[in-house]
């Protein structure tokens, strides 16, 4: 079967299951007796196995199969969960992730069988499950048919007539085989597969009996297996090969009836096995029922997960389609702005048609709502990125031999999809930094009177038009003097410069390329590629990063990211003859200031406003706007903020608030960071967007 169309769904769902597994394993490590968790893990592993099998990824299937066996033992109480087991299971997850990423890249799972992991898993089963193994044999066998000697032939019973046929065959020196055919659990058209089995067998053998009946099989009235009795001149191997050549047929097993037919010796066994299978099937059903509508819907969460996360009605949409939609909305807004400016041009002339104005206002409302809706569609909770971090911190804790705990909050904070995709790596860098450089060793912590277990916090929250993500630790903090000395040593700054630089400027040096203060380079961090990469990535997303640190008490890295990327509300201002846009999100307020109120501190202009001293930035000078400055009694100051810092931008006049579409200036025109892009105004002219964050 051509499964390529399902590939994306497979990858998405696999990743979800893996994430789920990882989360649940973390819980399991802490609460080894939590039955819900164990069941959840079992289901996720089972679904993964089924999916991998359907897609023909045998190695992945094998590995999940062995994992499932372990979980099954744990679920039955034959095995206890300990830290070593969780370690091995995490290794499994890593191996599975590698498979999935291989598949994602080249649609092939790769060639690594991960033997050591499989061996380790089996070793656990062997050592822990031994005592009860014999009593649980049937259970064990229910999922590993090839090894089980007892084959369930769906209770096939031959009538006298059929027995005669078998006996006839013996006389003619033909072979009679009993075969049980198993269909893949995720097979969508079971009946069609079964039909193909019958069709392919034609000419090779006579099917004298099937259970369920041929009619029932064609009506899909069977679970995942059916049994056949066939008479053939060919060998058993040939026949099963023909059956297995049909895709989505998982297995065909059986035996030859070597003597004239007598009562089925396994009849007694059936009920037992069947019951066992039923129990098992309940969980399978979940996976299968979910799987079917997958191409159109994404209600793929196993039912059990519904307890914690209500399953909504969702549709998977290609992100590219959303991009197209977003672009169309952008165009619409530009067109609307054109109409708005066309209507205002008529001012002063003949009375403007009132209906026209009303319609424009209506259009404005609709486009704004449309834009918000499209933006919301593109928003994703940050959870999808941060959920892998607890696992990472756990691994780091072991690797660095430091005790640490990660506390997260605000995982439901939403960000644009493009930002979500990019923010994972920078956050990971910061967390690794905190774990490696930030937190002290247990001894030092004890000396300093801190709890032995270090804490790392990851907090996300919305802050105006920005989303802030804070990575905080209660570790060592940054030793400013050491950074200062290091910088001088490396020749990054001269001693004179160092003396005049504030602590904050020194800390900022950490973001310079190839500046690492870690005394020893570890596997975890300290190669000097960390922080500058973090900064450039975040700036590329239109955000910024800031550090606050107190030596001995810990440091906080604050990342601020714009909530939306493409369309923002902006204040339009005029400087000279040029128009500029300033994002409304960073504007605190607008003040009219008498020029006599301007004071000087360090030869720089500041104003004193309600208890705070705000530096003034004259946009005319900053942006080299041609022409002479206006002689004004009062100047218009736009107060912008970044975090708790303020700055006052001096402009000539205000135009008003406007919804603008952000366009990139391209890579060739080398602009200062303070221009974050451009936008097209209603009259078709271009206005540049000032990134106030870089000015504060």
């Amino acid at each position, binding site marked *: 079967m051509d499964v390529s169309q399902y590939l994306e769904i497979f990858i998405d769902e696999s990743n979800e299951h893996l994430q789920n597994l990882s989360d649940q394993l973390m819980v399991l490590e802490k609460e080894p007796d939590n039955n819900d968790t164990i069941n959840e893990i079992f289901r996720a592993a089972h679904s993964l196995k089924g999916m991998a099998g359907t897609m023909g990824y045998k190695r992945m299937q094998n590995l999940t199969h062995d994992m499932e066996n372990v979980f099954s033992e744990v679920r039955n109480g034959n095995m206890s969960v300990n830290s070593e087991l969780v370690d091995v299971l995490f290794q499994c997850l890593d191996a599975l992730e590698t498979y999935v990423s291989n598949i994602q890249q080249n649609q092939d799972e790769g060639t690594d069988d991960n033997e050591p992991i499989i061996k380790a898993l089996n070793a656990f089963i062997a050592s822990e499950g031994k005592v009860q193994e014999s009593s649980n044999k049937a259970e064990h066998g229910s999922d590993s048919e090839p090894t089980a000697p007892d084959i369930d032939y769906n209770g096939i019973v031959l009538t006298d007539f059929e027995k005669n046929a078998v006996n006839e065959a013996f006389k003619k020196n033909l072979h009679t085989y009993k075969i049980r055919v198993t269909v893949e659990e995720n097979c969508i058209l079971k009946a069609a597969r079964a039909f193909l089995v019958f069709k392919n067998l034609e000419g090779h053998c006579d099917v004298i009996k099937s259970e369920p009946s041929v009619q029932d099989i064609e009506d899909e009235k069977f679970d995942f297996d059916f049994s056949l009795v066939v008479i053939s001149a060919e060998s058993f191997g040939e026949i099963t090969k023909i059956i297995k050549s049909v895709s989505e047929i998982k297995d065909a097993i059986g035996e030859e009836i070597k003597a004239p037919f007598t009562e089925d010796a396994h009849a007694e066994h059936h009920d037992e096995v069947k019951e066992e299978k039923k129990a098992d099937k309940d969980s399978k059903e979940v996976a299968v029922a979910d799987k079917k509508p997958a191409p159109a819907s994404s209600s793929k969460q196993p039912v059990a997960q519904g307890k914690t996360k209500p399953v909504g009605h969702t549709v998977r949409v290609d992100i590219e389609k959303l991009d197209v939609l977003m672009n169309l909305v952008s165009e619409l807004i530009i067109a609307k702005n054109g109409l708005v400016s066309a209507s205002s041009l008529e001012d002063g002339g003949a009375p403007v048609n009132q209906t026209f104005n009303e319609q424009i206002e209506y259009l404005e409302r609709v486009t704004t709502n449309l834009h918000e809706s499209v933006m919301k569609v593109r928003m994703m909770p940050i959870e999808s990125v941060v959920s892998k971090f607890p696992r990472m911190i756990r691994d780091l804790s072991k690797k660095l031999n430091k005790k640490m705990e990660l506390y997260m909050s605000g995982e439901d904070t939403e960000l644009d999809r493009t930002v979500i995709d990019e923010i994972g790596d920078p956050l990971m860098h910061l967390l690794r930094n905190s774990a490696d450089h930030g937190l002290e060793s247990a001894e030092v912590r004890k000396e300093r009177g801190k709890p032995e277990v270090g804490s790392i916090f990851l907090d996300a929250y919305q802050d105006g038009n920005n989303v802030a993500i804070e990575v905080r630790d209660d570790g060592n903090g940054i030793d400013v003097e050491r950074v200062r000395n290091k910088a001088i040593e490396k020749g990054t700054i001269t001693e004179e410069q160092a003396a005049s630089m504030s602590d904050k400027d020194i800390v900022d040096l950490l973001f310079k390329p190839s500046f690492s203060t870690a005394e020893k380079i570890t596997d975890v961090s300290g190669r000097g590629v960390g922080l500058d990469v973090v900064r450039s990535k975040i700036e590329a997303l239109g955000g910024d990063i800031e550090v606050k640190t107190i030596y001995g008490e810990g440091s906080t890295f604050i990342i601020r990211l714009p909530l939306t990327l493409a369309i923002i509300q902006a204040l339009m201002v005029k400087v000279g003859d040029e128009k500029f846009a300033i994002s409304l999100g960073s504007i605190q307020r607008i003040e009219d200031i008498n020029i006599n109120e301007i004071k000087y501190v360090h030869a720089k202009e500041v104003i004193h406003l309600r208890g705070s001293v705000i530096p003034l930035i004259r946009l005319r000078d900053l942006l080299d706007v041609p022409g002479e400055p206006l002689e004004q009694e009062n100047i218009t100051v736009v107060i912008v903020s970044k975090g708790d810092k303020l700055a006052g931008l001096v402009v000539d006049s205000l135009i008003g608030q406007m919804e603008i579409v952000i366009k990139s200036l391209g890579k*060739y025109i080398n602009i200062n960071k303070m221009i974050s892009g451009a936008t097209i105004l209603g009259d078709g*002219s271009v206005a540049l967007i000032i990134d106030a964050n870089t000015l504060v």
Partner: protein
Amino acid sequence: MEEVKALDKNEENNAIAVQYIVVKIGNEQYGINIQYIDNIVRNQRITRVPKSQHYYKGVINLRGEIVPVMSIRLKLGLEDDDYTDKTRIIILKVDTATIGVIVDQVKEVVTLENKDVEKANKTTLDEAASGYISGIGKSKEELISLLDIVSLIEEG
């Protein structure tokens, strides 16, 4: 980019004929390989971009897209542009980037064969311009400096 350049050279060596748009900048005629040309538009209001390279005049709105506009004159070290009603902005597409260049006048399209093109003699050319000229074409007794568009745009 190397690849594009290599490709470009190959074409010039092997192709039987290449079409160029002949433009006038100052007193000289320049040829722009037609494969890079997306569009030719009339001069329009250019929005200045502060702190950009001196040879970038700014950006324009080309049907909803923001396109940076470069002055070939300034890039070649000539005098600043003098806008007339013949001034045009030629929109070039290199890779995925779109960029506009200002020319004094668009004259015609010529087809040059290999034999009509002389490799640029670096010594006779102005130093600032030499890097951006790939050769000299001869058409109807007139000389056309063929612009190496990729290096004109890529090299800062």
